[in-house]
């Protein structure tokens, strides 16, 4: 596990605090979860884009 320090704007920090309270967990947990979901989503999106680009090559002019 790595310890990383990040700077957040006040409103984002407040949102995270509220979300953590709502989920009955810590801000760290919420941040970890959001990062993981974000990276998975980016992976899926880029994978789809790659296949889409290949398939678009097949479209007739």
């Amino acid at each position, binding site marked *: 596990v790595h310890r990383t320090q990040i700077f957040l704007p006040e409103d984002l920090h407040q949102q995270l605090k509220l979300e953590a309270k709502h989920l009955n967990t810590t801000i760290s947990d919420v941040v970890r979860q959001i990062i993981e979901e974000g990276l998975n989503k980016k992976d899926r999106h880029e994978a789809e884009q790659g296949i889409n*680009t290949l398939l678009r090559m097949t479209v007739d002019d």
Partner: protein
Amino acid sequence: MKSLFVTSSALSILNTKSSPSYEDVYGFLGNLFKHTVRVYTSAREVADATGEILQKTNYQKMERFLHLVINHPEGIKLLYEGSDLVPEAARLLRNISKKQNKFAPPSLRHTLSVCLMRKYGIKNILTLDQAYKNFDVIIWPKDSQR
């Protein structure tokens, strides 16, 4: 399968519908949507494909292909063979050439791509080039799918 390296033979077939293997490659790609598979190729494979596409079709089709590759960097990830890869690829070619091979003989262009795949931890390859059967890569589409 997490990643897939696409060679010039597959790239050029996708751009020539009249090719007998077109449906196999197209069908295989359609099935990939169910999985999260990152698509890679190399600058040299793209360069080779432009030549093949130009030979089989026309300049407009080749331009369109280049446009799709260059202007959609978030789609197909372009890898570059650095000069450090050439000695490794030459060594691999020597080793393979010493063996009795039942498959089509490979050239430096094949070993360069295989070394590039190894460098990035890619095991799957989309190709119609039988020479890749000489290497420890997983070739798609499978012969049984053709």
